[in-house]
């Protein structure tokens, strides 16, 4: 294969090749679609054991303020509807960067450290996000850490695997963040992920990531998994893919992400509004959006893909599919899409238009596969 100068690689690219990965371009990076086991086996392994994913293409951006981390959180609140002032040190939260029209620029993870905020943003958005944050967060120091790599360890055995290498990880709960020493490698670890399983994301210096990857895949019950499995895992978990399920036209309320909009930021809250697109987004929380992201169970075996049009059984236009694939866990096709308000109720029967055929689909609750994150018990 001729190397293409415009395509970037992660520090693990030699490892992927050595493992026989099928490499594909994704968001400007050459990434492993799957290893020799294939997407289905890698997916099932993650649901049963623990899998390692290279997600070093994602952007790692840190925000600090000379006035302290609360000032950085207050500044970032002007760009997202999440309640970031309530985010305690050592905790992480999901947020969306909104557009002036109330659409979504990117969906991001925000971790509150002792002295700063650490963000993970989508690979395809990271340059734009960095420019936007640098410009919009006047007075804050915004740094993109291109010298860091990111590895996800996901699956029901992820907790035991990491506990053996970093004992302190055992006490972490879903969305905790801690600086840990993992088998001698300093890592910023969050207990979160993109599969619906328990698991971690580990941010390490680029020069240390081969060692960490080798250490993790050499553990019992651990196997590498590629972006193909990552996509089917997140779809089963009902998680959105920026660019597919989220874009500048979809509001967080249409996307069924209003859980990420804190009470303090809603109408009547202590810091209501004050983010781009707040008028539309707060109105949609009150009145309901005109369309809504839903899960779709598909009759038969043929996957319905992004872009497939949906109609009601009576033939009226109902919306479109934004993500669709075969579900390895359920061994049948599943999809997500946006449908009109009238069609969004669970159990509503719709029709997908696939290659000139009409395929019956039913609005299905999300996630398709129950989430198993290690949430703190409510006492």
């Amino acid at each position, binding site marked *: 294969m001729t190397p293409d100068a415009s395509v970037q690689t992660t520090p693990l690219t030699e490892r992927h090749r050595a493992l026989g990965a*099928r490499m594909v371009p994704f968001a400007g990076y050459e990434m492993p*679609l*799957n290893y020799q086991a*294939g*997407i*289905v086996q890698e997916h099932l392994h993650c649901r049963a054991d623990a899998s390692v994913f290279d997600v070093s293409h994602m952007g790692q951006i840190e925000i600090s303020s000379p006035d302290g981390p609360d000032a950085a959180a207050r500044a970032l609140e002007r760009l997202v509807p999440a309640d970031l002032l309530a985010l305690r040190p050592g905790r992480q939260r999901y947020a969306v960067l909104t557009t002036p029209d109330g659409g979504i620029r990117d969906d991001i993870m925000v971790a509150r450290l002792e002295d700063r905020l650490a963000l993970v943003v989508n690979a395809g958005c990271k340059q734009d996000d960095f420019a936007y944050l640098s410009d919009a967060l006047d007075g804050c120091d915004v740094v993109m850490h291109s010298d860091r790599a990111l590895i996800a360890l996901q699956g029901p055995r992820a907790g035991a695997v990491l506990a053996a290498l970093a004992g302190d990880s055992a006490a972490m709960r879903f969305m905790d963040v801690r600086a840990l020493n993992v088998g001698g490698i300093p890592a910023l670890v969050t207990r979160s992920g993109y599969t619906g399983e328990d698991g971690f994301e580990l941010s390490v210096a680029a020069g240390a990531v081969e060692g960490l990857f080798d250490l993790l895949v050499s553990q019992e019950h651990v196997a590498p998994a590629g972006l*193909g499995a990552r996509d*089917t895992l997140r779809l089963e978990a009902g998680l959105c893919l920026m660019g597919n399920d989220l874009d500048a036209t979809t509001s967080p309320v249409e996307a069924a992400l209003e859980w990420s909009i804190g009470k303090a930021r809603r109408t009547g809250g202590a810091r209501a509004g004050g983010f781009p697109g707040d008028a539309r987004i707060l109105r949609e929380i009150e009145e309901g959006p005109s369309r809504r992201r839903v899960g779709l169970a598909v009759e038969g*075996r*043929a*996957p319905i*893909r992004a872009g497939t049009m949906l109609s009601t059984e009576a033939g009226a236009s109902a919306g479109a599919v934004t993500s669709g*694939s*075969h579900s*390895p866990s359920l061994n049948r*096709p599943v999809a997500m899409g946006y449908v009109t308000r009238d069609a969004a109720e669970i159990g509503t029967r719709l029709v997908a238009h696939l*290659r000139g055929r009409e395929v019956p689909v039913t609005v299905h609750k999300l996630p398709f596969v129950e989430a198993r994150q290690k949430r703190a018990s409510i006492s």
Partner: protein
Amino acid sequence: MLKYTEEHEWLSAEGDTVTVGITAFAAEQLGDIVFVELPEVGAEVETGQEIVTIESVKAASDIGAPIDGEIVEVNAAIVEEPSLVNSDPLGEGWFFKLRAAEGTSLDAFMDKAAYEAMTG
């Protein structure tokens, strides 16, 4: 003797009946196959006409008829269990059989050595 097309199909002739499937190379490239849609038995097909849809986890692909003829049998087993195309593409993973139109010759298709040279 097997013949191969540039679209990564294999053809096996017995009299005027030709069995068609996809090569191991193609199955490997597609990855895990999860859905196959086959033509109707009795359908008259023309060379290049898209008559099979294959879905892998990642994407859909269409397969064209390699020659003119009439579909005389399809492999229902791969509709029930699409992974057979991955596990045994030249055997249990065959797609369909067609009766070749009169005067059809397979001579112009590649032999094994030529196909292997093409796929490198």
